[in-house]
């Protein structure tokens, strides 16, 4: 099986504070990989490094065997990696439809086009409509994204992330702050939308993690202490001590 994401000896420090320490991680193509760990372990930082939002202090990050560390986010996105944000990060003054369409445009090949009417691009229209119905926001199509409810914004966040058709998807706590019922719906949505994609997901809800992931990595204090199938992780004493044990206590 070929690898989608590979991290080789990645380090990140802010001043003298070392946040990510010698992380090696491999995510195979088509795998659903969950990243868990206590608060402040560096999960979001790791996402920022992989997506190009931050540059690693040392080590390298490969996307399908191609070094991407050091590239700006849009270059990495164009190579087929898309991410969502822990804190909702949408285009607040634009409608749901416009939000999704903006996320479709580059991948559809329109780039910085200024000689075509955006409403007359059938393939963009079709793809946007499909994502809109996938995230169940058809009824809210023309509402400015800033006026959506929290759960709706989270759904839009996922919609924007997958709209460009990237096949490596990074989701940063997609169900954070959701009720139990909302979480169930969100997991179903994620499962459906990332069909056939490589998925790397940060999640606190253990039922989501163990239900969704093929493999799990545990990040504690900037280091990966264990990596394996859900059964292996459940049985790992180090993990129980560092992470799961805390929850049980």
């Amino acid at each position: 099986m070929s690898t989608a994401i590979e991290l080789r000896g990645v380090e990140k420090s802010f001043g003298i504070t070392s946040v990510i320490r010698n992380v090696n991680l491999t995510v195979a193509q088509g795998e659903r990989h969950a990243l868990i760990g206590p608060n402040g372990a560096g999960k979001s930082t790791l996402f920022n490094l992989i997506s190009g939002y931050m540059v690693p202090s040392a080590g390298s990050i490969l996307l399908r065997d191609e070094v991407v560390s050091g590239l700006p986010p849009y270059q990495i996105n164009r190579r087929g990696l898309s991410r969502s944000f822990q804190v909702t990060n949408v285009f607040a003054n634009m409608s749901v439809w416009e939000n999704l369409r903006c996320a479709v445009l580059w991948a559809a090949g329109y780039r910085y086009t200024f000689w075509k009417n955006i409403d007359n691009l059938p393939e963009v229209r079709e793809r946007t409509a499909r994502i809109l119905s996938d995230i169940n926001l058809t009824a809210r199509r023309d509402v400015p994204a800033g006026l959506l409810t929290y759960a709706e914004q989270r759904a839009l966040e996922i919609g924007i992330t997958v709209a460009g058709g990237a096949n490596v998807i990074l989701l940063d706590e997609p169900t954070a702050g959701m009720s139990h019922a909302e979480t169930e719906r969100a997991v179903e949505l994620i499962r459906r939308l990332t069909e056939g994609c490589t998925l790397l997901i940060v999640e606190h809800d253990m039922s989501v993690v163990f239900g969704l992931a093929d493999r799990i990595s545990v990040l504690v204090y900037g280091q990966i202490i264990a990596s394996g199938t859900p059964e292996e992780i459940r049985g790992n004493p180090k993990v129980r001590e560092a992470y799961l044990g805390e929850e049980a206590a």
Partner: protein
Amino acid sequence: MTETTQSTAPPYPAAAEKLKFYGLWVGAAIALLLLPKLFSSGGSLTTFSLIGISIIFALSYNILLGQTGMLSFGHAVYYGLGGFLVIHAINIIGTNKLPIPLPLVPLIGGLTGLLFAVLLGWVSTQRSGTAFAMISLGVAELIASSALILRTFFGGEAGISANRTKVFRLFDWSFGPQIQIYYLVAAWTLLAVIAMYALTRTPLGRMCNAVRDNPERVQFVGYDPHVVRYLAFCFSGFFAGIAGALAAINFEIANSAYLGAVQSGTVLFAAYIGGIGFFIGPIVGAIFVTFLSLGLSDLTQVWQLYFGLIFIAVVLFAPGGITGLLMMHRPLLKAGTFGRVLPSYLITFVPTLAMLAGLILATEIIVYYAVHGGDDSHIKAFGIPFDAANRYLWALSAILLVGGYWVARKTWTMVGHAWDEATGGAREKGAIA
């Protein structure tokens, strides 16, 4: 097209809507054509020409501020350079008898604006926000002071002039009479407005909005926000150059004032007062500000002070500008609840007007003592003669100002309640999301 697309995508505009849309543009063209028949004096033709120029300039500014979220303090650079190049171009065309007719000359101004935007924009559009604003200010100062130093090109304090009638003629139009200039400006205004409107409906135009809303997220959908800002900046420079060219053709002179901070400030005022959140906003603002600056300057010496007060009032109380204020009422009109706010508007009108009258009276009296202290105290402001030394008038202005404010404040809360009730009613009827 799949079934999902048909059921979920916004419907394509119906034939009637399309007709209405194109009818609007045709209507605008006819109105521009007929305007001189209704107001044929030289003065009004000049006013209309200035409004047209101001509309193009304000819309070009809004490509930056309203659409891409870049606050520029130096937009006059591209306007002014367009103007200067066009004056030189007219002189060169005239002396060398080149076969370039005057109606095409504004394009030279546009290309000049574009060229300088291409050259100066790459660095300044790296960042938006404060960094962009500061760089735009610095570049503007640099160019404006060069205009005074490089005398051979910019003509120093006096500027440079040209004779537009010496240019190659097409269909025997000399472009001497103002009516011909009016039609030239009107045609270019219509073209530029259509082009700038079309730009907002392209993929680039929409990505400009996305960059305005959230430049960070734009990077994660494949776009480089710097490139988006840069392209917007170039378009903006192009249209500003056309506006400057038309101004130069209209006045047959270009001087350093074209490039200066006042010019940059005026276009910001016009766009903001009109409403930067709407395409039509800067058009409304350009018309309003042109009339205001022409009209107020006849009525009072300190018209710029009132201008500033209006600007402050808009920023504080109506950040959506005039257009925003009008658009707020659209759902109420749709739902038929406008009648619930109207009485409160009429009631608040009286004390607010009294307050403003007191403010104006006090201002004019203070200006008299501060500026013309020793002169005859019988002065005239807004066409009304009065004695600035009259103590009763002082008292009256104080009573109007304080009393007016005191009463007006109560009526403002009334307007607030009426507004809440009216929007509540509109929401029930589904006119507001």
